[in-house]
């Protein structure tokens, strides 16, 4: 039983630098998410995690491979529209993800209008309820993005993604730009919402400490390939791939004995 599934996704880009080259950003990745499950996608910049996530909701199209929803392959534009009702994406940067001239209330009501979820008269009420769910005051609906802090904006982004009552949420580095105490607030909110709404989560991050805390299962990506996959505890405590091991050893962590970082060889 899966909600979203990706099979053998390959994505190549053509670049024009010193002539024409093709770059394969994602090399045959398969990924599936069970209802209520949190899957972590980790790897460094350029490992293909964001490209894969964008393919999952159709912002980017795969060169080959297929995306399935509830076991049915997504082929037509109509299928994609249907998928995006149930799979929502939360972007990394809470500053650029919101339109600066649109009031928060309007930004939250927009998905309802696009997908014709409810009569216009009901929208305001739904916005108020959603703001409450993510722990924001109803007055926030009348504000503009620049009147909110980073943590508040990220809550608004979460709220907007949840407006359609999706079954799956793709979170792309949603806490990396936030301060530690705000990051903890957003993570707890995410866990809380997941339990209340039975959400599946695809959580993309380069911070392995956060992934360890949040995810049931983890996929480690390196240069477009999944090099290791398994339950979070297994992958973190007994990493099998050398890349996973080096990634783990690079994490600054004060709970670990001192000077775990090896001396610089360079």
């Amino acid at each position: 039983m899966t909600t979203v599934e990706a099979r053998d996704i390959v994505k190549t880009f053509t670049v024009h630098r010193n002539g024409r080259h093709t770059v394969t950003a994602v090399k045959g990745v398969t990924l599936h998410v069970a209802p209520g499950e949190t899957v972590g996608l980790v790897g460094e910049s350029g490992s293909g995690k964001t490209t894969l996530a964008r393919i999952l909701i159709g912002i980017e199209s795969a060169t080959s491979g297929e995306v399935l929803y509830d076991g049915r392959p997504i082929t037509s534009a109509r299928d994609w529209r249907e998928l995006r009702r149930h799979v929502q994406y939360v972007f990394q940067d809470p500053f650029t993800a919101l339109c600066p001239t649109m009031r928060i209330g309007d930004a939250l009501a927009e998905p309802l209008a696009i997908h014709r979820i409810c009569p216009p008269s009901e929208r305001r009420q739904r916005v108020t309820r959603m703001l409450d769910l993510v722990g924001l005051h109803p007055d926030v609906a009348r504000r503009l993005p620049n009147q909110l802090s980073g943590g508040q904006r990220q809550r608004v982004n979460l709220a907007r993604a949840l407006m359609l009552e999706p079954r799956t949420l793709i979170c792309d580095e949603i806490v990396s730009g936030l301060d530690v105490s705000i990051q903890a607030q957003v993570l707890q909110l995410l866990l809380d919402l997941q339990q209340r709404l039975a959400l599946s989560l695809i959580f993309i991050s380069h911070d392995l400490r956060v992934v360890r805390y949040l995810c049931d299962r983890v996929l480690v990506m390196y240069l477009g390939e999944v090099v290791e996959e398994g339950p979070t505890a297994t992958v973190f405590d007994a990493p099998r791939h050398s890349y996973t091991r080096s990634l783990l050893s690079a994490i600054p962590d004060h709970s670990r004995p001192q000077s775990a970082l090896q001396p610089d060889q360079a």
Partner: protein
Amino acid sequence: MAPVLSVENLTVSFPGRIGPMPVVEGVSLSLEAGSSLVIAGESGSGKSMICQALLGIVPKAATVTGNHILWNGRDLLEADERQWRAIRGAEIAMIFQDPTAALNPLFTVEHQISDVIRAHRRCTRSEARARTIEVLGMAGFPDAESRMKAYPSELSGGLRQRVAIALALACAPSLIIADEATTNLDVSIQAQIVRLLRRLKDELGLALIFVTHDLGLAAEIGGDLLVMYAGHAVERGPVQAVLDDPCHPYTRGLLRSAPTLSSSRANPLRPIPGQAPRPGTIGTAAPFNSRCPVAISGLCERVYPSWTEAGLGHQVACHRFAQDGRGGLP
């Protein structure tokens, strides 16, 4: 050993509607050659403003006051722009958070580094070139001799940060300030840069100020730690001592909100409720009192706490700790 840098009672304020609005207030610190100080805190805590004050590059509207900023016996509070120009880059150098913004996109790596060298020293082009190759090598920049002809845009983020480090090293400064220098880098690159900075500190006897919001990273740098909150220093001491035995409610809250590699959902993170106060709204109160679970009513909102000893070289500014010791902490 006498400290190379000794800052006492540093205050940086901006003009506000109702008088000066301090963003850094009464911060003291000192640093010896070959030692490191980590300044940790969240956005708005004033950590970057301290660095800017130490380099004389605060925004024009800001005023810097204090008892002194003693740098090798000279008081930098008295320095004029001409004296600052001789110190900045040559004696005290800075590595910025974003190497892309710190480097000029129109000039090659070689051009930018040798420019700095020739601005501070009388030397020939070929001497400057040799020094450029040397510092790039020290910063772990591979094939310096051929690749220094590259423009910043032709380099990866990690290599650009190494160029920024070489730029800081160019005139053999005795203090390097790294302001969130690894924040935008991938974890493995971050680990390389941290190792490099530690090695340079030991080998060249540099003093290092490392600013970060990541307490895990603070532990990797080592030395002393200064925890900042809303413009005030709230706890200071050897990094490991403070992290093993945090004695300020804010430091404890911060550690409990950050996941570590050994954390799991069985021990949920406990976020600090609320938000940091805006600068200038604290007055004489203990800065953390509005979010503190163990604030003493009638005291914390009125009186700023003085330093209390918590261990060897470990001090904390907290009324609750002064009154009840560790037993009173959350």
